[in-house]
């Protein structure tokens, strides 16, 4: 092996290390496990912020499909002080470390993340999120100052998501 080759391999190694190290640093995939009493106050604050709250799960195909659109929209608006996106995973809390965090990292889910672990009270908190919600996911709530502005009990397109954000963010 020539010196040149060794140098190349070393450079590639350092580069790879920097790359993975950097993305790991950038991507903490922090997920707080909460019950509904802890979750609700996080998006019902009277702070003039438009909260976009998406309910999803790793096993839910239509959720997984729409999440990249949520990330695109979040990237565009997250610097706006009147905007906050919250992703609420409904996965099994026992699987947070072995599957949910991995998924979050793979999908680069860069928003505030919670896992709602309150399964025995579904019949109470589902109607508290929205009275029309039957519990199918995905579901997305747009809410500001504790006042629900729009609720989608189904998948939404990137266009619908952005239109709804634009409609409510400055009102």
């Amino acid at each position, binding site marked *: 092996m020539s010196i040149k080759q060794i140098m190349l391999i070393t450079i590639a190694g350092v580069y790879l290390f920097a790359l993975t190290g950097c993305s790991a640093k950038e991507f903490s995939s922090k997920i707080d496990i909460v019950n509904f009493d802890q979750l609700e106050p996080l998006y019902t604050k009277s702070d003039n912020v438009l909260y976009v709250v998406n*309910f999803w799960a790793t096993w839910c195909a239509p959720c997984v499909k729409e999440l990249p659109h949520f990330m695109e929209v979040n990237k565009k608006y997250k610097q706006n002080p009147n905007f906050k996106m919250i992703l609420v995973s409904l996965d099994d809390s026992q699987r947070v470390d072995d599957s949910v965090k991995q998924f979050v990292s793979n999908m680069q889910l860069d928003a505030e993340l919670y896992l709602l672990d309150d399964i025995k*009270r579904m*019949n109470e908190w589902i*109607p508290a999120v929205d009275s029309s919600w*039957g*519990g199918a*996911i995905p579901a997305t709530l747009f809410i500001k100052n504790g006042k629900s502005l729009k609720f989608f009990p189904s*998948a939404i397109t990137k266009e619908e998501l952005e239109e709804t954000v634009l409609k409510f963010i400055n009102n």
Partner: protein
Amino acid sequence: MKKSIINTIFTAIFLLAGFTAYSQGYKPGDTAIDFKLKNIDDKFVSLSNFSDAKGYIVIFTCNHCPYSKAYEDRIVELDKRYKPLGYPVIAINPNDPAAQPEDSFELMKVRAKEKGFTFPYLIDEGQKVYPVYGAERTPHVYILKKEGKNNIVKYIGAIDNNYKDASDANKRYVEDALNALLAGRDPEVKTTVAIGCTIKVKK
């Protein structure tokens, strides 16, 4: 001419009202339609086939959904326990296999055999039945009670309040509703909601 315009308006209002009622699905107290759907044994099943039944536990469920899978054993138990009492389980897969290949008719047969289903497992071909009932997710239960020639909706919702662990459920909605009906009373809790999978429709 004027009359025809008025007629058109009335027809439009009528259609609109009809459509709204249709899209909202059933509420407790409504009369449910019968259906004729293909079972996993390739024979067609209707509610009216069960002449001795006092009612039915109609469950929209499927193969792929983790919540449906979590409840399969409990659905078998419900059928074993309540069929002899006059309330058989009728399971219907509402998903379009074109949108969710795991829910194909062939794989329904496989799943039913694996899990030892004791009840009909029907496919909602053309997806005509689930919207009339208003099923939104899997699993989604409708308890019907036969009153004369009609099947009256008595309960709509979840099976119990713990999908993960049956033994830790402290609210058994479907059992409570059935026990009330068998005792000649209306269920106390008539509707519940729970997280579930959306019904898959090909776009």
